[in-house]
């Protein structure tokens, strides 16, 4: 029997405290130690650690396995499920399995296409879309049935999340699409990297106009840019990431050896600004291969102490 208790992330969000989640860089090894080590760096500052599901369509240790390892050492994972690699049968089974291991936070995403990853010849699945995945997970939790109507014999305590990208077209539809996700089951949202504050403010205005900020917890995606080169790569090669020219210029003007520091500074500034926006409930800090910076960012943005 699964223990029925709210996840820490859900508790923090419900209590109205500013929540922080981060992402674990998935190893290319079969070493549990690699996961433990990466998690240790983040655990002290985060209410949940995202186990990413082959993001960018690059092959790494699976998000399911990372979640299993994290629950073993008592850290709280956010289990990312993308629709790219598995069909509905596999996904529903994985949701049960994850819940059995004590995973409660589920993040339902579409997933980057295989063409952006290291194995573009792979077969893209996309049997579900993210909204169908959300609705199915909600059905499994609330009605205790599979999509076929077959009964599930235990409770599945899940806290359901989805992604949102307010920074790409069709801009004016993005808030309404969030409403769709909420109806499908989303309780929390992690957004794509936010570098464009005016655009995000406009999005949040639309979200508030529709009353959606009262129905879902919105966590803004932020992260430090490691260098001008890295920013340029993200901007041109990673789908969905928008970095305005001013930020690119700011990094370019900074001498190479100080760019990482500048990238962190930009991240702290963005974090401070988004905290002030009405309807924002937390941040999701993505610091790929510079996880050690998460602690500094949290501290410099004035978010300590955490507990």
């Amino acid at each position, binding site marked *: 029997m699964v223990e029925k208790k709210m996840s820490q992330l859900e508790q923090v969000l419900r209590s109205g405290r500013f929540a922080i989640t981060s992402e674990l860089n998935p190893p290319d090894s079969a070493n549990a130690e690699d996961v433990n080590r990466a998690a240790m760096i983040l655990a002290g500052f985060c209410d949940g650690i995202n186990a990413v599901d082959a993001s960018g369509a690059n092959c790494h240790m699976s998000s399911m396995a990372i979640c299993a390892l994290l629950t073993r050492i008592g850290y709280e994972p956010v289990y990312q499920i993308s629709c790219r690699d598995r069909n509905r049968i596999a996904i529903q089974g994985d949701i049960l399995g994850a819940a059995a291991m004590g995973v409660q936070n589920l993040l339902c995403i579409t997933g980057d296409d295989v063409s952006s990853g290291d194995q573009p010849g792979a077969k893209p699945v996309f049997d579900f879309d993210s909204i*169908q995945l959300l609705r199915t997970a909600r059905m499994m939790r609330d009605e205790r049935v599979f999509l076929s109507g077959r009964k599930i014999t235990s409770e599945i305590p899940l806290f359901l999340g989805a992604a*949102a990208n307010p920074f790409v077209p069709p801009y004016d539809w993005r808030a309404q699409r969030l409403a769709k996700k909420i*109806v499908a089951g989303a309780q929390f949202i992690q957004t794509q990297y936010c570098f464009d504050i005016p655009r995000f403010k406009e999005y949040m205005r639309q979200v508030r106009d529709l009353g959606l900020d009262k129905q879902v917890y919105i966590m803004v995606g932020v992260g430090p840019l490691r260098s001008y080169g890295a920013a340029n790569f993200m901007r041109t090669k990673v789908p969905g990431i928008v970095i305005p020219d001013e930020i690119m210029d700011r990094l370019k003007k900074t001498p190479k050896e100080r760019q990482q520091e500048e990238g962190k500074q930009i991240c702290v500034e963005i974090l401070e600004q988004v905290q002030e926006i009405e309807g924002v409930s937390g941040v999701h800090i993505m610091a790929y291969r510079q996880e050690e910076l998460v602690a500094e960012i949290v501290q410099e943005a004035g978010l300590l102490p955490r507990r």
Partner: protein
Amino acid sequence: MKKFSLIFQELIYDFVHWAIQPLKPLLKPNSRMEKIIIPLEKLAKEVAYNCQMCGQCILHSTGMVCSMNCPKNLRNGPCGGVRLNGHCEVKPEMKCIWVRAYEGASLMPKYGAELLRVQPPVKRNLQDSSAWVNMLHGLDESSKVEWLSAEEQEKLEDLWSK
């Protein structure tokens, strides 16, 4: 001009919907008649919409754009990878299906709001069958579980005009 064309397409949709109802006894799933009608349906919808013959047509709910042309087969709106010029993450030369769908739906007085429908998972086993036949016999929408209550759906579609 575009608006005019879309209103016209709404009318055609209503007409086809109405005109095939009496044919229900003839047009049975997996029947010889279905085999005859499939090429006709395909021809009509392929020329106009690049129809992929998913067998469960939602064209009128998606701005008269066939969403099965989205490389990720999304039925509920765009992914997060849409390019800044509105083109597709996967096929940079193609405009994102959902950018087009939103533009289309915005110009459709009757069915525009249906863009906010929460579409159920695709029944892959209906691929290459006739959406008309499936619609007549309810195969496209039948389900053992309630996908979304009418009330929830209505509330959502009310947001369209906001």
